[in-house]
């Protein structure tokens, strides 16, 4: 199931990029296409920041998500100001957007980590028997 969901997301991203590339060639850049490309750019920056946080920090699961929350919110706010998503009056929305995504990611990650640990320990027990 996980693999199907992951493949669906990758395929959707590829389809969006292909369709938009053709649209840009035929009709030029529209606001919708610009927004989606900006979202791809933002995702890339967040993924890079995430990679370095995972590689160079070794915090608790909650600590790591708090650091990621602060880092991702800063990136989203900076990026949002640069591309004109946020104004001085509504910049706080970045905290909500990032918060919702990270709370979901936290619960999925905590559940997956627990399952992985159970699997590994069960295999070690089997090996010892």
């Amino acid at each position, binding site marked *: 199931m996980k693999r199907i969901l992951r493949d669906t997301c990758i395929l959707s991203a590829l389809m969006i990029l292909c369709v938009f590339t053709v649209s840009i060639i035929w009709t030029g850049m529209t606001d919708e296409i610009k927004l989606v490309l900006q979202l791809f750019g933002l995702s890339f920056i967040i993924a890079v920041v995430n990679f370095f946080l995972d590689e160079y920090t*070794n915090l608790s699961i909650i600590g790591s998500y708090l650091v990621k929350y602060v880092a991702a919110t800063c990136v989203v706010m900076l990026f949002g100001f640069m591309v004109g998503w946020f104004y001085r009056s509504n910049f706080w929305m970045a905290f909500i957007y990032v918060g919702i995504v990270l709370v979901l990611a936290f619960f999925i990650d905590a559940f997956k980590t627990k399952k992985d640990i159970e*699997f590994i320990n069960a295999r070690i027990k089997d090996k010892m028997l």
Partner: protein
Amino acid sequence: MRIEKRQVEGQPLTVIIEYPEWNESVDSLVRKIGRMDLSFVGKTDEGSVNVSISDIYYIENVERKLFLYTKDEVFRFDGTMADIESRIYETGLVRISRTCIMNTGYLSQIRQIRNSHLEAVMENGEILIVSRKYLPDIKRIFKKEGL
């Protein structure tokens, strides 16, 4: 597959593989056994020794110097983590953090401390810190072993 084992004193560890015809499974088996025989040159104050992969509990990078830890000995290793990673493919050794590679053959338990960091408890009682990022890699090794 029939597995026979017997103790022959005074002889080095010898593995004889008999097969009706050479195929992919035999090839894979030979490669796997060959990899178990890999060794790294470890250094001590007395000189250099070959440290077999199967004797290594873990490898740690401490202030840019690599150390090979066996059950009760420590050896220096002149090389990089990348050198080691390029040679441990299809062995039980796996990276568990930015600075540590663990031999899953000596792992006795993985535990999570109160929803916090992860620890690997080794058979000799040593505790290593595991980065959550590498947990799927450890799982992959146990999945492969179960096949």
